[in-house]
């Protein structure tokens, strides 16, 4: 199995530090809640041969460290010196709790209100990944963000293209797991 190297000037520790700092900064500033970093792991890319073997079979359910039923995933891309995309995985309950804290709204106004939750999480992604992007630019990797998008569903997987560095970061807040899945590569 092949692991794609991180761009120079960004070590594994440095990436972990800037991601955790960005997530912590957002949730303490705008939601008013503590968030606990649990761990991160690099997702390894399967070899091309192995992928071809599995082409006729449905891809196995990916082992995600969170419940895969009823997910709300906020995605935002970035392009420039680095090209990539980051996903923030929330369960429905976590998404609603974060929305209440972020917007200062009552749960009765948020529960089941996809429009409000989607918009809130899109902005969560925008601000969190925006902060990561700003820190990356200090290392010489200037990028711009795309508009955020939201995916809702159960039992789905997101597979990366070849040649990217992919790393997942787990956090705990509101007694649930928040997953940040980030994949990127240096532009040629």
């Amino acid at each position, binding site marked *: 199995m092949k692991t794609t190297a991180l761009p120079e000037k960004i070590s594994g520790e440095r990436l972990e530090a800037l991601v955790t700092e960005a997530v912590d*900064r*957002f949730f303490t*500033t*705008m939601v008013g809640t503590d968030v606990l970093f649990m761990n991160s792991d690099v997702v390894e890319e399967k070899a091309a041969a192995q992928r071809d073997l599995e082409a006729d079979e449905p891809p196995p359910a990916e082992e995600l460290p969170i419940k895969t039923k009823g997910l709300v995933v906020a995605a935002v891309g970035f392009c420039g010196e680095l090209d990539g995309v980051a996903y923030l995985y929330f369960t429905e309950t976590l998404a609603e709790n974060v929305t209440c804290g*972020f*917007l*200062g*709204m009552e749960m009765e106004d948020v529960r089941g209100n996809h429009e*409000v939750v989607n*918009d*809130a999480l*899109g*902005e969560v992604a*925008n*601000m969190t990944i*925006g*902060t990561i*992007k*700003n820190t990356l*630019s200090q290392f010489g990797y*200037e990028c711009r*963000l795309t*508009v955020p998008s939201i995916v809702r569903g159960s039992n789905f997987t997101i597979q990366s293209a070849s040649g990217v560095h992919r790393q997942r970061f787990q956090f705990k807040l509101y007694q649930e797991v928040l997953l940040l899945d980030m994949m990127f590569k240096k532009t040629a």
Partner: protein
Amino acid sequence: MSLKILTVDDSRAVRIIVKKAFRSYDCEVLEASNGVEGLALAAKEQPDIILLDVTMPVMDGIEMLTKLKADPSLKSIPVIMLTAEAGRESVLRIAKLGIRDYIVKPFKEEVLIEKAGRVIDLRPADEKVSKAKRLSDTVDILVVEDKPIIIDQISKGLAHLHWKIHGVSTTGGTIDFCQKQMPDLIIISLSLPEDGAFSLFRILRAQHKTKYVPVFGLAVKTDTELQQKAQQLGFNSIVTKPIDFADLETKVAKAINLDTSERYFTYDEDYLTINLPHNTNSYMLTEVQNYMKGKIADAVDKGFYKVILDAGRLQKIDMETIKLMVQAKEICQDLTLTLILVGNEAVKGECRAYEETRNWTFFNSVDEAKNQPMGGSGAAQPEAAEIEL
């Protein structure tokens, strides 16, 4: 008139947050979701300030800002950019277009208010009806003075009140104090070195949190130049050394809109007493006058049947005091209460000199007065003695 704040952001979440941040201020928050809507709303409403996002569909913030600055009717509207872009080049590019400030997301509400407050005059929404502090409430006074003995003097001079005197000696100390606890009033020694008092005053007035805190200048009585400079700069009042603490007390009470009625009015079992202190001055008489009608009406509401006006501690009496007593009599007559007067020889003698008050009778003490049955002698005028509720 309320201020108008226009927030232009494609994220409804951000617009909700901005609206929430300003809800306790006297302002109206207008919303637009892109640059086109923002321009249209700005032209129609002429907001006092625009909070503008950078990345938006249809028309982004840069384009909207460029168009604003090109329109003579809109170019003077101050703009603060709210953006997730913190890169140096982006900030410089935006700054060149003429923004007043920028805020990087995520942001604290306090930062938004602070920065907006530097551009527009934000006032609390309920400023006019905010509950005044009473004499028995704690009042925090910060004294900025590099001579500890003066701070000590002020503490002792005001020790009879529920006022806490906090002392600092520098500008930095003042700012640190105000970050942790907002004082009700600040007294600054005008003789701080290197014009420190005036620099500090400008800093306090520039910061949103301290903008409306009353600030007094403290100077030696003969230092008229410093006093004049302070008044021109906008200090709320000047206190001269040596300090007249009765005068200071009055000035502080006035500056912080202190409810001093309990100094003059007490409700006992079945009567209201109006107490005139021994050092009653014209300011105090005005205070009594301001509260009197309301307090006597409250007494009626409580089921009281008499009011005792105690002028027994007055060392002198003048026309203003007599006018007050006449006014009290008239109010009591209107509300069919019995007014009973308490006075000393000076008060009695003075009253005998006037037509209106010549026949007034006085008791020697409140104890004598309160035991009088309803309509008993000692009422303000004999003919009023029989008036009942």
